[in-house]
């Protein structure tokens, strides 16, 4: 944790309440029709769900549960019942709401989950169902589609700047600084109690400590399993084996407990959504760029493959394994894609958020100072403005040759020529303006970069957006006609590379450059 975050946490304790983090909201909250809230519970030790609550933002949930989570058939039936809700929400081609391409202008569909353990459940579902052939073939096909969707949602959740899979606890932590340690901040109820309790610090803290007694993860409190569920599950198993009529009653009792637990997780997630949605801060303008990127990822990483599969033309469609990509080029490509996403996220959000700019400057990735002098070193009619900036001395990750851009004018890029420490203790930075020397045509308020009247103005320089370079790299790494490709692009072989059949990928290989968008 950087010192700026430590200091903010201290301020939060001092103010006796959570403090807004950043001056804008960075997480878009979709409208009711586009936001699905899902909460899971599982039996301890199991990786599959025991029950699930699903519903739209602001609506009551539908609750699914099985009496015995160790019964693979029962769980598969339950998930097959859940599948249409998720598949239709994410506009699977089997459902009427067709998406035509990556530039489909409709809002990004979101799934909200209580915390990261529920996001992990998506991965567990991908493992269990992406390639399953268990049971009825019709059910298996539905489960395969669900597994592929969950696999993509889980992968997308790892991408920086994504806006489709939101953990409510993460969203709150991102939007506010809480006066608590990191471990406690993993608990959604704890965070909500801090935000919602309108009282002094002691009462807020007491409410938060009370709230954290109730498990929010996919795992139930062991006491609930021990005291309320163990005997009931045992009785259900006995009744089921003997064919007793009591089986339905026992199942209902189990479902009652699970429903209570699911509803708790679901309701808290809904409350978190409303808190972020009702926050008085404006939504960062850069979020639109993140949504655009999310639509492209959604199309290239998930939907286009589903549509090809839906065409049913006999051609194989690649289905990635939930375990591994097993392809060095694919892994490298996604690495660059994620790096590009992170660069893109920072670049588009920071331009519209003063607090974020301060955070970047405090971290040493940018700087703020006064332009002391402006000179033009251009020749042959070409301007080459050079600014001398005086900035407070603080640790910098900026070095000579680093490229920075001007806050509020992201296309005006500068190359750092030198950084020197003055006797006054300030830094003297020489920077050469590389791009947008004249300023944008549509704006009359921006001076020419060589205009001497810029001297005396305060300028903020931020890291420039290198997402484009990284995106191009993510495509170029697929190139196989390069020296050493036999090594760098070799697919692993041999006994150690063998995957169990239930998780082995299908198809010829990853989608290639298109999939690396």
């Amino acid at each position, binding site marked *: 944790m950087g010192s700026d975050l430590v200091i903010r946490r201290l301020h939060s304790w001092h103010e006796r309440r959570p403090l807004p983090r950043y001056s804008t909201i960075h997480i878009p909250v979709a409208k009711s029709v586009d936001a699905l809230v899902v909460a899971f519970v599982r039996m301890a030790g199991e*990786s599959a769900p025991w029950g699930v609550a699903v519903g739209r933002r602001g609506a*009551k949930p539908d609750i699914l549960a099985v009496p015995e989570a*160790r019964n693979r058939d029962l769980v598969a039936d339950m998930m097959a019942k859940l599948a249409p809700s998720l598949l239709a929400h994410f506009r699977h081609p089997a459902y009427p709401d067709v998406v035509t391409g990556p530039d489909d202008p409709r809002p990004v569909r979101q799934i909200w989950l209580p915390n990261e353990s529920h996001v992990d459940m998506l991965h567990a579902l991908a493992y269990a169902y992406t390639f399953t052939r268990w049971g009825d073939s019709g059910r298996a096909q539905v489960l395969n589609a669900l597994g592929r969707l969950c696999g993509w949602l889980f992968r997308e959740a790892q991408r920086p700047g994504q806006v489709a899979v939101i953990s409510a606890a993460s969203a709150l932590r991102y939007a506010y600084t809480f006066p608590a340690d990191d471990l406690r901040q993993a608990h959604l109820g704890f965070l909500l109690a801090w935000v919602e309790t309108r009282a002094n610090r002691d009462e807020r803290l007491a409410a938060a400590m009370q709230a954290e007694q109730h498990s929010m993860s996919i795992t139930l409190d062991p006491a609930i399993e021990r005291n309320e569920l163990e005997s009931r599950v045992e009785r259900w198993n006995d009744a089921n084996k003997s064919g007793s009529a009591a089986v339905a009653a026992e199942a209902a009792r189990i479902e009652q407990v699970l429903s209570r637990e699911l509803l708790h997780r679901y309701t808290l997630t809904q409350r978190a959504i409303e808190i972020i949605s009702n926050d008085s801060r404006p939504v960062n303008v850069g979020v639109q760029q993140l949504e655009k990127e999310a639509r492209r990822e959604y199309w290239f990483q998930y939907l286009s493959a589903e549509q090809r599969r839906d065409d049913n033309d006999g051609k194989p469609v690649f289905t990635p394994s939930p375990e591994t990509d097993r392809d060095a080029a694919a892994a490298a490509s996604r690495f660059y894609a994620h790096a590009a996403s992170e660069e893109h996220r920072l670049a588009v959000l920071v331009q519209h958020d003063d607090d974020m700019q301060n955070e970047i400057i405090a971290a040493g990735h940018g700087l703020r100072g006064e332009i002391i002098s402006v000179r033009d070193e251009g020749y042959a009619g070409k301007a080459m403005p050079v600014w001398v900036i005086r900035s407070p001395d603080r640790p910098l990750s900026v070095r000579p040759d680093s490229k920075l851009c001007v806050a509020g004018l992201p296309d005006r890029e500068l190359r750092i020529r030198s950084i020197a420490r003055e006797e006054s203790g300030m830094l003297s930075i020489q920077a050469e303006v590389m791009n947008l020397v004249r300023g944008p045509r549509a704006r009359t308020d921006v001076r020419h970069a060589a205009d001497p009247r810029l001297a005396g103005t305060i300028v903020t320089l931020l890291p420039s957006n290198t997402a484009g370079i990284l995106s191009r790299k993510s495509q170029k790494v697929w190139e196989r006609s390069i020296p050493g490709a036999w090594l760098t692009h070799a697919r692993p072989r041999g006994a150690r590379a063998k995957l169990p059949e239930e998780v082995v990928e299908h198809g010829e290989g990853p989608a290639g450059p298109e999939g690396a968008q």
Partner: protein
Amino acid sequence: MALRPAPPVTLPSPCSSVLRYRPIPVRWCPYIGRLNHSTPIFARAPDEANARSVSAFTRPVDSEHSTFLPSMDEKRDTRRRFEQWARNPACEANTISAVHGIPMAEVAHSEGVSSVMGQSPFAIARGLTFERSLFRNDAAELRSALEENGVLPAGSHGFSDLRLRRNGGPIRDLDAAREETIELLRMMGSERGGLRPTIVASPTVLIPSGVMLPEALLVIDLIAVDYAAQGVKITVGEIKTYPDRGGHTDSHELATARAQSGVYVHALRMVLRQLGLDDSVMVADHGFLVLSRPGFNKPSVRAGEDLRYQAWRAQRGFVQLEAAAERLPSLENKADPDRRIRAVHEAATDYDSSCVSFCDRAQICFRAAVEAGNPAILGHDVARFLGNIPLGRAMELMEGADCRDAAEEDLVRRLSEGT
């Protein structure tokens, strides 16, 4: 927050050939009880649903934590107590609890706090079942997985089961398991022929020095033994039933499993040295983890886990624990239970944010830390940032109070620079 009623049912219907799964709306299901009938949920037709009986396939139970022993044996298995101590060695109450085997849950209970750290009965059952499935048929499935991952050479054979009877093994109690383990280690180190198992379940060792009171007994999940020409090599294995999700497997869980394995590596080396077998039997620096496959009751072996640093950590930890134990008040094992609990209760505590994850008294200590202005309540980083300055004093400085010394001046400077 008042939620709106669920919107009118708009059942999404598959319209392509791919998902030709016959949807029917369901209002009640014998397997899952009553459903909200406004649910966009689908079920198979009743005849299809009943075609495969619910009891046709009931997957065995499993658990996150494989090592389960009943209370008496659990108290004797000191690995858990060592790990408890290692999580917060600065806390004297924690040290007393770990060294003397006084459960924190009992101390917390005596202070009116109910334990929240218990294990789920389903998790315990799952652990036992997973272990039993691994060791079934002379550990055939486990052997296959170990050979496939290079832990054992192909064609290995020989299984020695030192599990207790209550865990599905043939051994009467922990003392018998320990004797059998020593016998087995001697046999491994001898030139004579005889039993040469390549997989040993639950070998049990007593740590030679008297660190833990009254004893330091460790039950290792399993070891794999390679009788190559160069000598006998033991590889320590740790069984966990949480799912192996490749690179997304919980890194904290993996770190814990490696730390546990490191303790076993160190303990085995100590025992071999004591038996004079350290020349003929070596313990490998690398171990392996046996996890479960997500959604399937099969083992997933992670071979080649580097345990060198974890073994060093254990070695250092035991030395420190021994030194800490010597400073503690004497508490005989049969001492009055109330006195033992009181000893923990009266000992000094040192709250750390990680206490929440393992100690039943964390809430009590947290409240005390809040009142004392201990910056640890805001996390390690804040505590490090403030140094010896209490939280209350830091708040005063933030409000503009005059600095009393250089440390406070430095803090004010850092606070002003960081904002």
